[in-house]
Structure formats: structure tokens, C-alpha cells
């Protein structure tokens, strides 16, 4: 019996990264911009998506890839607003989307006829941070009912997100959430992060969010 050592030095997520790079190339070739929307459960992500589709659906070709742990409820809600909806996966307990699932979903989207893809990740502020889906950027959505220390508690997610949407701002008069402190905590882990302030319920701030999305989509 001899002990033999095989040197490997290989990134564990290399396969996911390779698929994500392929997705990024395909999207770039067709001029499609994709955002990976990450959040905790109950942040209002699906309602924000509905409002976004209501406002931009008439002028942009938007596809939505929806991931969910168990139900197709979100997909059913979103289906009322776009014909280009792909239920990427009901993960059956899985805590994040990976690039392979998005690649499979893209097979059902005609990229040549698409301007923008919004990927609704599984509601979870931990696991989706580690998986590149080939998106242009991650957008972290959190709400004023969650506590302003979310960026300090989940630094990876805020570090890896280029944009943050602070949602449910209509509730600010009724909660103790300190907006400045939340932003300061987010900037501490990611100085470049850009904030949007929205109430998907009342529509406040949603125009600015939609203006941003529109501005990043190439004519």
C-alpha cells in the first residue's frame, strides 16, 4: 500500500464560472442585459418585478427567469405581465440558482428578440451570492421591515451586488428603520454600491429604478 498525492489546484466553482462566462458571451452577442435579483424572502421582489413589467413591458422586450424553492406562485403572478416568462426551476429545497439552471432557461428565450432579462433568484441572502449566473450585475433588494443591519449581517451579498433596492419605503413612518445607517453599512462593505429607494406598493421611486434599467439597455 502506498500513499499517493494528486495535486489539483482547481477552483471548486470552475464549472459554474465557465457556464456563466458562456451565458455572458451569448447575452453580449445579442445585446441583452441581464440582472440577477437577490433578496431575503418577503422583500417585495415579485411585486417590484410586477411594477417594473407594467412600466417597461410596453417599450422593452423583457424576459423573466423565476426561481423558487417550492411553488410556482411567483411565476403565476408574473405571467400576467409578460409573455416571456420562464420558470427556471422549482428547486425543491435548493437555496440558490446556478448557471446551469439559467443556461437551461435561456434555451426557452429568443435572445435576438429580447432586450432585458430579470432573474428572480431564490429568496435567500446567503447562498445566491456565491453563484455567478452570467448576469451584468447582481441587484440586492431589501426592505425597511427587515432591520437596517442586513448589509452587516450578509456582507457577501452586498459586496457582490452592484446595486441595492431599498423597498417598502412607504412603511418608513411605521418602523424604526434608519435609512442612513443602512446605506452606511452597505457602503462599508461595498463603497461603490448604488441605492434605489422604492415602494413597489405605492409606486414611489419605481420610475427611477425603471429609468435606470432603461438606460442600461442598448438601443
Amino acid at each position, binding site marked *: *500500500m502506498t500513499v499517493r*498525492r494528486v*495535486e489539483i489546484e*482547481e477552483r471548486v466553482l470552475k464549472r459554474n464560472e465557465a457556464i456563466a462566462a458562456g451565458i455572458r458571451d451569448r447575452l453580449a452577442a445579442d445585446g441583452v442585459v441581464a440582472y440577477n435579483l437577490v433578496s431575503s424572502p418577503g422583500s417585495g421582489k415579485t411585486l417590484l418585478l410586477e411594477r417594473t413589467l407594467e412600466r417597461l413591458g410596453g417599450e422593452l422586450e423583457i424576459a423573466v427567469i423565476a426561481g423558487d424553492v417550492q411553488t410556482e406562485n411567483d411565476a403565476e403572478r408574473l405571467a400576467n405581465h409578460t409573455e416571456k416568462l420562464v420558470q427556471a426551476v422549482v428547486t425543491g429545497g435548493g437555496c440558490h440558482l446556478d448557471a446551469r439552471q439559467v443556461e437551461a432557461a435561456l434555451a426557452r428565450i429568443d435572445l435576438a428578440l429580447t432586450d432585458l432579462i430579470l432573474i428572480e433568484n431564490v429568496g435567500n441572502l446567503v447562498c445566491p451570492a*456565491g453563484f455567478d449566473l452570467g448576469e451584468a450585475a447582481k441587484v440586492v433588494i431589501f426592505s425597511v421591515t427587515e432591520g437596517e443591519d442586513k448589509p452587516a449581517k450578509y456582507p457577501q451579498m452586498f459586496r457582490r451586488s452592484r446595486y441595492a433596492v431599498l423597498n417598502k419605503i412607504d412603511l418608513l413612518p411605521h418602523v424604526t428603520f434608519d435609512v442612513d445607517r443602512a446605506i452606511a453599512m452597505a457602503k462599508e462593505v461595498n463603497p461603490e454600491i448604488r441605492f434605489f429607494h422604492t415602494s413597489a406598493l405605492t409606486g414611489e421611486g419605481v420610475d427611477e429604478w425603471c429609468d435606470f434599467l432603461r438606460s442600461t439597455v442598448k438601443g
Partner: protein
Amino acid sequence: MHEMSIAVEVCRMAEAHVGRDRLANVIEVGLDVGCDAGVEVDNLEFCLEALLSNPPFGRAKPIVEQLPGDVLRMTYLELDE
């Protein structure tokens, strides 16, 4: 619980490197995990211990080295042949 996804990927990589028939001979799986990798090391070890002690593996143990940064890589496999 993405640690389980990572553990499963580690097992897949081991199979790719040494072949399924030799997985039972693997005694150590070396990993570097950065403190900013977004991976809970205890949890990853727990998941790997569960996977590596069952067929097609036999008695492999995960050996995790914690490093600064966001590195997450398999560094070596040790086989008893």
C-alpha cells in the same frame, strides 16, 4: 445550505480526476477556503464528511485550510493504493 452544492461539486471533481473506481482509495481531499468565500467551513466539512464516508467513496476526510480572501479551490487528493 449552498455548502452541500459545493460539497457535491468537490465529489464530482474528485471523480473527474481519479475515476470512479478509485474513489474508494481516496483518504484525503484538500481544500483552500477563503474567509470571504461565503462558505461556512464547519458546515462544508460536515457535508463533505457525510458524502466522503459513503460509496463510491470509502474513508476520505476533508482537509480544509482557511485562508484570507475569497479563494475556494480543491488543492489535492491523497490516495492509499
